[in-house]
């Protein structure tokens, strides 16, 4: 099963933690995706709704 790390990859920078080759990298990508989706959902839920101004005649 594809559970082992590809040892020949030398990642630097952000790719060291977010890549599709190492177990840690794949896990971090998954967590980052879920966090982004949760963030977007929370943003739209907590965004204050603009109330239309009601003018009385």
């Amino acid at each position, binding site marked *: 099963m594809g*559970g082992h790390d590809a040892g020949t990859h030398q990642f630097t920078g952000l790719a060291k933690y977010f890549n*599709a080759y190492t177990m840690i990298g*794949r*896990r971090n990508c*998954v967590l980052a*995706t*879920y966090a982004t989706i949760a963030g977007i959902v929370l943003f739209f839920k907590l965004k204050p709704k603009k109330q239309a101004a009601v003018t009385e005649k």
Partner: protein
Amino acid sequence: MTLSFFDQFMSPTLLGIPLIALALTLPWVLFPKPSSRWLNNRVLTLQSWFINGFAQQIFQPINQEGHKWAALLTSLMIFLITLNMLGLLPYTFTPTTQLSMNMAFAVPLWLATVIIGMRNQPTHALAHLLPEGTPTPLIPILIMIETISLFIRPLALGVRLTANLTAGHLLIQLIATAALVLLPLMPTVAILTGALLLMLTLLEVAVAMIQAYVFVLLLSLYLQENV
């Protein structure tokens, strides 16, 4: 009372008492328990061969930790195969045509495998949601696709068994009705329909066994991923 083709799938009751409980406990009385004798009779020997052979075959690719599931999955297999086969007898009720029952098997067992994976090896379980070597632009969308496919698994398990059994039973009833109705009108066509019915029944026997096996095999594969 006008009967429809779907009445065979209605959960049977007698004076308000649900008979599905009887249908579910019937497999239990059909199988002899192992005896303390050194040499058993033929039925018990065949039963033991089947159970041991099945357990070995299913659990051979799974590591030691997963072997705790042997009793559960083997008994589930025997239960499903018996229910499916008994349902092929005329005028019997097949509990595995009920989606509620199949989902009641599929969801808790699938969820157990997912929870085991998340508890024992969370990195491995989460990393599974992103196939190795995915190109960078495809990463987010593939993660979402894999997540959806993970949650669709119990639904697919339950619906697969329900749909196969229901469709098979319905076809048998339709073709049998056709053969019966055609008998006084066109006997030759009725005989051909009867031959078709015989082949369909043989197919349904195979489907009954295969679907029970596939249900348990897929659960064992989900366990293999997570244990």
